[in-house]
């Protein structure tokens, strides 16, 4: 059992993780951190507080956003939306399945937001805490002006 400030986490706690492909990685976001998801339309969403995931993660590789979606993040004021590719699936995982990152990755990965991995054979879902990501980054809001 893990005690945090607000809640007690049991080893048999389950999380709903929504998966999204970013570059060659499959990222997983805890659905508890997401307020809503909507398709991104540049004309309609121009006024919103938005940030592309490649900017948030400072990725060098160019990402082809085939079907961009806005993930509105909970507990952030004013509301900020992350633009990602369309969600792949929602999976229900036990926290027993979550592996911590290897020490070298933990030490050198520049983001505390990357917090764990779910392995399924040779495939991985890299878990991202989007609240930590938004709170800890230097990002460019409003992609049309970026």
């Amino acid at each position, binding site marked *: 059992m893990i005690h945090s400030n607000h809640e007690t986490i049991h080893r048999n706690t389950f999380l709903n993780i929504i998966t999204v492909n*970013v*570059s*060659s*990685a*499959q*990222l997983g976001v805890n659905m508890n951190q997401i307020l809503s998801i909507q398709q991104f339309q540049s004309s309609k969403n121009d006024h919103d507080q938005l940030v592309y995931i490649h900017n948030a*993660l*400072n*990725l060098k590789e160019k990402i082809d956003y085939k079907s961009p979606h806005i993930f509105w993040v909970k507990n952030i004021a004013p509301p900020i939306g992350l633009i990602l590719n369309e969600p792949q699936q929602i999976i229900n995982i036990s926290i027993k399945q979550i*592996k*911590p*990152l*290897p*020490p*070298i*990755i933990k030490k*050198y*990965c*520049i*983001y505390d*937001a*990357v917090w764990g*991995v779910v*392995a399924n*054979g*040779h*495939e*991985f879902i*890299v878990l*991202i805490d989007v609240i930590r990501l938004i709170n800890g980054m230097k990002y460019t809001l409003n992609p049309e002006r970026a």
Partner: protein
Amino acid sequence: MQPYNDHTEKILNAIKIERQANEKKIAVKEDQVELVIFKIGSLTHAFYGADIKEILPYETIAFVPGCPDIIKGIINVRGDIESVLNIHKILQKEESIPTRRSRITIAQSNGIKSGILVDSVEDVISVPTSEIFGSISTLDPGIRYFVDQITLYQGQFVTILDISKLFKKI
């Protein structure tokens, strides 16, 4: 037959003791160092075998956002997640595309464990310590820091890379 206790017997005993001492010397094997011989591009290097826990065939390495270039990503080793280092970047060499000869060596030193992707593993050999020599000053600056010793493999000098220095440098 009665045991003798004369001068001849003393000489024979002395010879016997000398022979036994020589036999002991022969029985003691020269100290050996195990080395894993591998290639990075066209250059041959070695790791100390004691630092290498496993040699795995190449498999897809999952990218982790936010990691520096010297970290290739992660792999699943029987349920444990291991990082994989990009030794080409660490040694300032041109990166190569993984082939079926590529290997991931799982290295451990001073409590740190990680995979290291190499272009091929050529051999695992035992070398007498007398054939391990001090490093030379004319080594490529990119690898000089990581090399304390060199040896000969198939008539060529091979630099032995110190895993603890690799882990320390990153």
